């Protein structure tokens, strides 16, 4: 079953043709990794799934993007409803200048949840899911900035999980973290797969190999190759993919 499906997606930044007709489908409860050299369009493509590109002036998108069967660029889609359904974790940990608790509760509150007990329960569950609960349970009222970088990133993951999205987008989530925090986050991705469809952008090929079930290789705005991770890394069909994974460019 497909969670995210795109058909012939083109994206333009003004005159620049950034994505050139991308058609692919991402399976439910699987981890799909996007790899490719910087500027290949993998992050841009990811940001189409929760319409984050809307925030940039002069962006034009063509083609269809379906999430759980709903065309998200149809006019009657409310973009904040979509974003509630599609969570996102960013490159650098970006907690709000609020307490740890309020960071996680934020998504619930902005989406109209007022029930205190429910929020408390959900915050606890999300922090547990993000493997952060034991470290922060005694200082939920403390500022999120007091956490280490790795903890902050897991907080951001908990924050995304609290609104129970069905798809979780991760845009190079470990690029600002030390190796230990990276390992923890990758472990977490493994566990989260049970409940979520995860799409992760990374330029670390080892990471793609470690965490993903499927891998897509992007180059100059095109989807070059998309296959099971094992297949793509051991038996690439396209010469460009082979060059990239063997380190000839990138």
């Amino acid at each position, binding site marked *: 079953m497909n969670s995210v499906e795109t058909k012939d997606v083109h994206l333009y930044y003004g005159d620049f043709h950034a994505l050139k007709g991308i058609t692919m489908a991402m399976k439910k409860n699987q981890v799909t990794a996007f790899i490719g050299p910087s500027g290949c369009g993998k992050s841009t493509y990811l940001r189409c799934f929760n319409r984050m590109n809307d925030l940039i002036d002069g962006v034009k998108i063509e083609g269809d993007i379906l999430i759980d069967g709903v065309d998200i660029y149809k006019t009657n889609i409310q973009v*904040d409803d979509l*974003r509630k359904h599609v969570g*996102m974790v960013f*490159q650098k940990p*970006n907690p709000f200048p609020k307490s740890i608790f309020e960071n996680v509760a*934020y998504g619930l509150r*902005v989406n109209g949840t007022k029930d205190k007990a429910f929020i408390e329960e959900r915050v606890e569950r999300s922090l547990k899911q993000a493997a952060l609960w034991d470290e922060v349970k005694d200082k939920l009222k403390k500022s999120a900035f007091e956490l280490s970088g790795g903890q902050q990133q897991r907080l951001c993951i908990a924050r995304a999980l609290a*609104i129970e999205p069905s798809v979780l987008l991760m845009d190079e989530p470990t690029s600002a973290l030390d190796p230990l925090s990276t390992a923890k986050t990758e472990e977490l991705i493994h566990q989260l797969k049970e409940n979520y469809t995860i799409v992760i952008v990374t330029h670390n090929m080892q990471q793609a190999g470690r965490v993903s079930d499927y891998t897509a290789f992007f180059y100059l705005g095109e989807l070059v190759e998309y296959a099971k991770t094992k297949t793509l890394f051991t038996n690439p069909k396209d010469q460009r993919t082979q060059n990239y994974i063997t380190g000839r460019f990138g």
Partner: protein
Amino acid sequence: MKRYFHNLGEKLIEGLITISGTVTSITVLLIVFFLFKEGLGIFSQSPVAEGSVIAVHQNNPVKELKAAEVKEIFDQNITNWKEVGGPNAPIKLFSIDDITDYYTEEQIGANFEHLPQRLNELVAQEPNMLAFFPEEYLAKDFKGHRIELANVSLGDFLLGRQWYPTIQPAVQLGVLSLILGTLWVSLGAILIALPLGLASAIYLAEIANPKVRNILKPVIELLAGIPSVVYGFFGLVVIVPLIQDVFGLPVGETALAGSIVLGIMALPTIISVSEDAMRTTPRAMKEASLALGANKWQTIYKVIIPYSISGISTAAILGIGRAIGETMAVLMVTGNASVIPHTFLEPVRTIPATIAAELGEAPQGGIHYQALFALGCILFLMTLAINLTVDFVSAKKKENR
């Protein structure tokens, strides 16, 4: 040799540049020095009007009075000596114009040549008299004793409610009404400017599309440059009559007029400082909020405003500072009555306006002149406190990052 001159030139330039840097710092110290040198003089001068004498019968036990008591006596609010520590007897007031009630012109003399003698007799005859007359008519063998007026104390100065710097026989130099007037007008100004300014800043920083923004920004910047006297003039010909009509007041020159004009003047500062602060909110933080399903407005009030709150407070404080120090516009529209304000619909007088209006008429070195400098000191300290607060707030902001 050439190398040597080269190095010399380099050293000279460095010296010149260092000196320039020093000049600015010295200026501030000089300002403080001269301001306080003149201003503190007020505490060592007698508040008796210059060249005048206040005297009583030699047996009167009252030796010293406060300036405020003298005024109360001459206003006939105090009528008995026991109220100022003397015997239980009514106070008989005498000032030099009353002399004809006691003596004929012949007795005084055509050129007032006998006047000192007559005054001497009069004070000696009347045990309950409080006499006030010019020093030049003080007899050499004067039999009464001169009343010393207590020097103005810091408490009298700051907490006194009466500001009559030229009144006879004793000047009243209480600045409480001026301080409160300044704060009152500034408070009104900030109440007007803050909501408008913040709304505009939010609109410009987060809502307006770039085209609209590029038109509005220069207009607001331009208004920061309009001279205060022009704002004052506009207030005088438009806002003052408008307030008079709308509220049916006898005069339109009120605290409200001052607050409106100052509020308008503070707008550009508040808008640009708080807009800059909001624009420093990291993009990542805004995106995180949007990605969680918050809409633009929720992102603004739940993330952007809390993030830039110290910048916004700086903007508010700077706006207050601008209002407190503003002179000409306030002078022109507030009516300048030195009373403690109770509503926004009565005239008030601020510290800067007082200095501007009165310094030209105050004789140099006199107590009035020094009182105006002391007001300058108060104003300087108020704005210094504001600057230090701003420094403190922005230092704290850096710490939090």
